[in-house]
Structure formats: C-alpha cells, structure tokens
C-alpha cells in the first residue's frame, strides 16, 4: 500500500511538473450555474471562454466549474480559483453576487467579474447585456407575422430582466399593431424542456401563433416547428432545432467582452466598472433573419440599426398597466428604471406579484 501511495505521489508530482513547465501569462477562470451543455445561458458563456482561449493562445489558460449551486458551493468554487492562481474570475450568475464580493475581499490582487449583479468593489466589476433591445425587435416581428394577433411568452422568473424583456417585446409589438396581445406563462424554471414544451403547446392552443421564450431550452421552438407556428431562439442560435420555425434568435455573445477584459488584465489597465452594453457593441447579436418576408426583414434590420445608432427601446410614451405615465413622449427611461423593472406596460394581460 505504501509503495503504491509513493508511486502515486511520484506520478502526480511528475504530472504537475509537466503542466507547470508551460505556464501561461494569465489564468482566466469561469464559474457557471448550469451545465456547459444547456445550449443556452451557460453554453454561451463557455463559448466566450473558448473564444478567449483561441484569441490568446498559449498566453492565457482557462478553467471552469459548471453546475455550481448558488450559495456556499459558489463561494468555495470562487475561492478555489482564487487560490489556484486565476488572475481573473468570471462568475456568471446573479446568485453569485455575495459570494463573489466575499471572496474578492480576501483576494485583493485577483480581478473578479460578476455577471448581472449590482455590487461592485475595487477588484469586482459587473457586466450584463441589454437583451431587451433584441426583444423589442422580435416583438415587432411577432406583431408583423402573427395572424391571430397574439403571441405567447414563456417566462422563467419574474425578475427585472425578464419583466423588462416582456415589456420591450410588447412595446415593439405595439409599434406595429397597437392592439397586439401577449399571453405570458411563468414556468418557474430556466430549464425544463418538458415543461417548456407543454407551455408552448398551451400557448398555441390558446391562440398564440408566435412563441417567444425567456427560458433556455430549445423545446418551445421544436414545438413551434411541429405545430407549424413560429418562434425565436434564446441565448444561442437555435435554427438547427427549428429550421422552418425560427425567425431569428437573440444571441448572448460574451466573447468580445471576455477578450477585452482579459486583454486589460494582461496590459495592467483593468479597472472596476459596471458594463451594460447591447447591440451596438456586439454583446447582443441577432441571428440571421429567416422564414420572413423581405419587408419584415427590412423593418427588423432598420430597427436594429436605429438601436445601434443609439436609440433606446424604452423611450416614451411608456404607460404602466394602471395608467401611470412612466415616461412622456420622447423621454428615455434611465438605466436604473430598466434594471429594476417590476411593472408591466399597458396591454399585457398578466398580474405581476409586487
């Protein structure tokens, strides 16, 4: 037994020496909330990681931990990376906010980047993307394409990001058809293909002929394909799952941001900030417009360009469901109002828990 142990340690020491020989300039580490293979949120972050590897080659080494539960597991995972010599650590779920801040205090020399949160520190930056810009565009497409005048919306959890997505979708739709209807179904999960498929079916049965989703699986699009209706991909381009059904997809492209920030660490210019960018910077990308008539594609592209040129979808008039005016004609909602949105715009038939 002793001999065996010795042999083991020797083998390990050898292996460790082997890997240390070709040390990179920087180790960039990623903590994921889901499996790398969810083909949604985590998948896209991992694509960003792979882009970093490709861009920097041997200069940057990467590592990741997937399916890390929020809470103590996250704190441990982040601390592990900090101890293993990661120079920059990306924590990619809202629930990692407090663990990130906690670990960052212990490791002032390590840079931390927390996605979708609102707490920063000298060595903690936050980043997120303006996904609602894409949702405004798909809302327009839905209103143009729908024959029943009703879209179905599969929503995960009533957090501001999802609520602002629903509102942006509705505002886009109303800009085309003021009487457009959106039916919202909350599935209380980010990822459960069976449940998402059932929700899509329920919405179609209730008269929706365009399905939008703020959940991560491809199941709703597959149902749309089967039932001969249409939908939009979420987080990644899902055209392979629904060749005839997908109009476009709102793609989360984290690669530009990750490459940029890793570069800054390498150059020593990294500073804490709160990044919240969208179509203009390429952090949100619309997948190719498919299965659409030319005029609708033209409209979508025009809106896309308008947003890239600086227009904000949450520009007045914006009226809440109860009739309160939130923004007068031409007035732009401030970022805080969008990031903390917990009300619906007029026309959405759903109650939001307050």
């Amino acid at each position, binding site marked *: 037994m002793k001999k065996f142990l010795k042999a*083991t340690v020797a083998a390990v020491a050898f292996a460790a020496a082997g890997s240390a020989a070709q040390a990179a300039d920087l180790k960039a580490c990623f903590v994921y909330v889901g499996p790398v293979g969810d083909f949604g949120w985590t998948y896209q972050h991992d694509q960003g990681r792979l882009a970093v590897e490709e861009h920097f080659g041997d200069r940057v080494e990467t590592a*990741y*931990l997937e399916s890390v539960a*929020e*809470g103590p597991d996250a704190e441990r995972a982040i601390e592990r990376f900090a101890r293993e010599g990661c120079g920059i650590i990306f924590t990619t779920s809202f629930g990692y906010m407090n663990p990130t801040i906690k670990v960052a205090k212990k490791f002032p020399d390590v840079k931390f980047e927390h996605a979708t949160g609102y707490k920063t520190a000298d060595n903690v930056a936050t980043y997120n993307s303006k996904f609602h810009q894409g949702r405004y565009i798909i809302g327009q497409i839905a209103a143009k394409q729908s024959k029943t005048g009703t879209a179905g919306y599969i929503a995960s959890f*009533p*957090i*501001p990001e999802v609520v602002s997505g629903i509102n942006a979708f509705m505002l886009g739709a109303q800009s085309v058809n003021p009487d457009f209807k959106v039916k919202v179904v909350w599935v209380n999960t980010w990822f459960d293909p069976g449940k998402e498929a059932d929700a899509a079916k329920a919405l179609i049965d209730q008269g929706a002929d365009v399905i939008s989703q703020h959940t991560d699986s491809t199941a709703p699009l597959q149902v749309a394909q089967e039932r001969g209706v249409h939908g939009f991909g979420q987080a990644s381009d899902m055209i392979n799952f629904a060749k005839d059904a997908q109009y476009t997809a709102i793609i989360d492209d984290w690669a530009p941001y990750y490459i940029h920030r890793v570069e800054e660490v390498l150059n020593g210019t990294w500073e804490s900030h709160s990044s919240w960018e969208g179509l203009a910077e390429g952090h949100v990308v619309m997948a190719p417009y498919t299965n659409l008539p030319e005029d609708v594609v033209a409209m979508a592209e025009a809106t896309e360009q308008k947003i890239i040129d600086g227009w904000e979808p949450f520009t007045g008039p914006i009226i809440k469901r109860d009739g309160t005016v939130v923004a007068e004609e031409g007035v732009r909602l401030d970022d805080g109002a969008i990031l903390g*949105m917990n009300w619906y715009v007029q026309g959405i038939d759903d109650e939001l*828990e307050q």
Partner: protein
Amino acid sequence: MRLELVKRKERSASMAVMSPLVAVGLTALAAAIIFAISGVNPLVGLYEFFIDPLTERWSLEATIAKATPLILIGCGLAVCYLSNNWNIGAEGQFVVGALFGSALPVLFPSFENALTLPLMLIFGAVGGALWALIPAVLKTRFNTNEILTSLMLVYVASLLLDYLVRGPWRDPDGFNFPESRIFSDAATLPDVFGGLMSLATPITIVIAIVLAIVLAKTLKGFEIRVMGESPRAGSFAGFSAKKLTIFSFALAGALAGLAGTMEVSAALNQLLPSISPGYGFTAIIVAFLGRLNPIGIIIAGFVLALSYIGGEGVQSGLGVSNEIASVIQGLLLFFVLACDTLILYRVRLVTRKVSATTGEPSHV
C-alpha cells in the same frame, strides 16, 4: 452451479470493519477506470479527487463545512431508518426549517440582541419538525406511504421558498432581485477558526455524539432499534410504533430544520430562491454509508463532502465532467450496500453435484 447466501450465526465483526474499506477500494478502482475512459491518468485523477483536498487547510475546512449539514441531517434520518420510518423528504424539512429560522431576521430585522440567534435556531428546528410531522401524521392516522408524501413535500417546500423570496420576503432595497435582506450580525452564526467553518460544525458534532450515546445506552435507543428490527417484539415490550413514527420524524425534521437555519445564517446570510444543493438527498446516502450510526455518519459525511470537493478539483484541474462526482457517489453506495451483505451472510458456491453427494436436497 450458483452462488448462495448463508446467514451467519452472528454478525461478522471482521467483516463489519472490512466492508467499508473494501467498498472504498472497489470505488477507487471503478473511479480509476472512469478516469482512464475520460482520458485522464487514473493515478493523477484519484490523487486529485481523494487526496489533494486533504493536503491544504482551506480545502480541508471547505470539506468539513460541506459535511456539516450532511452529518446533521443524516443523524436525524438514521433514527428514522433505524425505526423503519422511510423519511426521504429531509430536503423539504431543511428548507422549511430555514424559512422558520429566517422569519425573525427577515420580518423583524431590528430585533437584534443576544436572543436573536438562539431563537432562530429554535424556530428552525420547530419548522423542520412541523414539516416532517405532516407525513408522520398521515402515516399514523391514514396509513399513507411516508416515502411518497415526504418526497412530494420537498417540491412544495422549494416552491414555498421560491414564492416567499420572490414575493413577500424580497429585500426591499434589493432592486427587485429575488433575495431576502442580508441578516444582521446578531443573526449570523459566527465563524470558527476564522475560515470557512462556522459554529454549525461544533454544534453538529456535539449533537451527533449525544445521539450516538442515546442510541447505544438509553431505553429510547433500545426502543428505536427493537421497533426497527422486530416491530412485533417491540409491541410486546409495550412500545408504540405510531408514537415512534411521530418521534423519529419530528427529530429528523428538527435536525434538518436546524441544519437549514444554520446554513442560511452562517453560509448564505440571506434567503435565496434555492438554498440547498440537494443536502437532504445526499444526507440519505450519508446515513446509509455511516451505517445509521451517528459516529459512522460523521465519517460518511466527511467522505461524501470530500467527493464534492474532489469532484470540483478534477473538473477545474483536469477538465473532467462534474458528473463524475455523482457517479462515484452512486458507486460508493452500491459497493457499501453490497459489501454490508457479507457482515450478515456468507456467500457460498452451490453446485448440484455437491448437493447430491452430501445428500442435501438441491434448491431449484
């Protein structure tokens, strides 16, 4: 020719010691094969998985911190299982306990004094016990299968937590994000050794030891074991199976609820939509791995926690799928269960020919 089990006259003491060791050895062998299939040097994989976490102070502390709730829940479950009450809903009892325990700091944040923490812990235990009593009472009153009811209540508990954190208990200053307010210092279980471990660890160890003594040395412990092994004999001795069902569920729920409150108070410091990475389910393995004996459960909890930390290690260091941890956990439990058979039984090879010559009737 076939294998046959022959009951030993008494428990084999040597096998009782050997069995877990053999099981761990077989698991390591299986793990080595899996590593090899995944394209990792098996020796490196085994070292990273089982040994590396023990070589550094912080990872050792992380392992103990992770083991703490598993041990506490596992101890309560052991009492249930010893008395033939199949509570598999500890996950729900953990969550409801955490909700009860958090009620004070969430709803009355200004109540900050020396009583805050003790009250929270008591509330947590009571909450967990109440949730556990639902399947217990349904079992004793209506004869309803407790395996299924306790499990169904897990889902209900998680949805209740989800509702509260996204609705009425949401942090008023939290930008509508799904989280409760952060607990004040008075509501936070202090750290020990200035690291990842909190007061929850010593509390858990004390409870486990007390429970071990109760089980081994007291009449209650005798009652639990007798009713589990032979309910008929127990009822002749005047023990009530129904009362014991209520007792064991309440105890298991209370410990799970306490674990939930301590976890929320010490590690999370607030309520989140999900507060447990499956502690209540993993604790079932821990209870069995520890042979339903509190001291064994302390060891088993540590081994299971090690498999999580080791699993993270091989994932970050060697790029092996994180699923390997759950495969190894499943295999370990299989091997332990299989090897435990050897404590009570002998395996022997039976062939027809042998039966015939010894004159024994052959079994078909």
